[in-house]
């Protein structure tokens, strides 16, 4: 591969990663505003129009914070944990297919708008989001504080418990598409039809979609499953001993994790970039459709956070192992029957 092509790939990765960071910044604003509206107050509306510049003000404040390290921590691990967590959260976006069309930028046709169309994209995404757990447990252990360690242990047990359900809930789509490439999965629903229609996989595996949503909430440490930082019990959970930009990196990673899972859910269950009744959309419409679907996902997650109280920890684990796991297996077997018999293959 010539050097300029590698350089172009670097630029593409840079653009995608930074766009995602902008989306993250906007999402913190959207979440705070929406939560405020749910609670009959206004939320941040002072900085810039509608408070849109609030994330920039927050960043400037965090940059000015002292880069503080408590006495008893393991210095290297304490620093490495937030970096690793953010790195793994960002890495998932390497295989997210924001669009399958080629982009025509000023006469120069770039490859499709995903950073890398890996043959094993799904495995890569699952692996990277799973590795994020290391950042949590290392951060909690390095802090050398009771609350932080307990928060990290809780978060880790929760992450691994729900990771099984998450993967199992994704399996029906893999059964029906027979591929691990994210871009092929996004178009996979075209191979299956009910009465001439090509419905998204949410129609083929509705239970799988619901289980995916629940497991995604737990994976992303979102309310009502935000046990790693249950503030009434654990002060701040695994990042109790963190402040300034080190803390920001953890918060950032958490939001990116949520966005990544939303994007995976859109790719798997909501037909990726496809628009019903408009088979030949261009790259811009594709990106718009993907964004709208993701925004819907994010809104549902914020909505749930504003509505549902936190589950008790033992009930959370019991639900994961005793309810979600058998249900996900049931959906998996039903879809396996459909796929192996080829019912509804177009």
């Amino acid at each position, binding site marked *: 591969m010539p050097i300029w092509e590698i350089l172009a790939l670097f630029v593409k990765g840079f653009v995608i990663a930074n766009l995602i960071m902008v989306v993250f910044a906007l999402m913190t604003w959207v979440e705070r505003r929406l939560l405020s509206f749910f609670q009959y107050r206004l939320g941040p509306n002072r900085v810039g129009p509608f408070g849109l510049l609030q994330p920039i003000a927050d960043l400037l404040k965090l940059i000015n914070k002292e880069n503080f390290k408590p006495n008893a921590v393991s210095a290297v691990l304490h620093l490495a944990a*937030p970096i690793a967590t953010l*790195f793994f959260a960002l890495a998932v976006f390497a295989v997210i297919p924001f669009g399958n069309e080629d982009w025509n930028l000023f006469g120069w046709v770039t490859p499709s708008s995903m950073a890398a169309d890996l043959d094993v994209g799904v495995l890569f995404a699952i692996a990277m989001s799973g590795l994020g757990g290391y950042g949590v447990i290392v951060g909690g252990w390095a802090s050398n504080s009771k609350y932080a360690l307990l928060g990290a242990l809780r978060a880790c047990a929760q992450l691994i418990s729900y990771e099984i359900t998450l993967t199992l809930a994704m399996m029906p789509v893999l059964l029906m598409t027979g591929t691990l490439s994210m871009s092929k999965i996004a178009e996979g629903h075209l191979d299956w039809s009910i009465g001439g229609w090509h419905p998204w996989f949410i129609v083929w595996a509705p239970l799988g979609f619901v289980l995916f949503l629940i497991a995604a909430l737990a994976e992303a440490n979102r309310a009502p499953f935000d046990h790693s930082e249950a503030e009434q019990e654990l002060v*701040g959970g695994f990042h109790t*001993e963190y402040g300034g930009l080190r803390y920001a990196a953890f918060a950032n990673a958490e939001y990116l994790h949520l966005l990544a899972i939303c994007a995976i859910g859109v790719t798997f269950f909501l037909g990726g970039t496809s628009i019903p009744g408009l088979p030949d959309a261009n790259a811009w419409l594709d990106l718009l459709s993907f964004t709208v679907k993701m925004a819907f996902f994010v809104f549902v997650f914020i909505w749930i956070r504003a509505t549902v109280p936190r589950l008790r920890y033992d009930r959370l684990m019991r639900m994961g192992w*005793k309810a979600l*796991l058998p249900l996900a297996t049931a959906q998996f077997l039903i879809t*396996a029957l459909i796929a*192996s018999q080829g019912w509804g293959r177009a």
Partner: protein
Amino acid sequence: MTLESWIPIGMFLLVAMMIPTGLIGLGFAFGARNSRPDIGGNRGFAFESGVSTGHAGRQRNPIDFYLTAMLFIIFDIEMVFMIPLGLVIQDLGTYGFIELLVFVGILAVGYAYVWGRGALEWE
């Protein structure tokens, strides 16, 4: 799949590494300095809501976490076997489906045993 198809991933991971290190680096470069070094070590104690810190944070932990991790490994290995089988199930047809049922059946026996022994209970 050649090694070359991993170059885009490598480039993205490079960017993904630059962003967090850059962010933390900003904190080192522009963060406020300690304005009261004379207070010394007290401000650096672990946060315990004002209660005396007591002994160090790393202590014995409930066994449940360890148990969950072990169970996770079993079921995760299950997923590792399930993914390749799932990808080819359309080619295998009914044979593949029965194969899958046998596999899930064996797993279900183990799952029922674990449930019966109370390993899924939290106190």
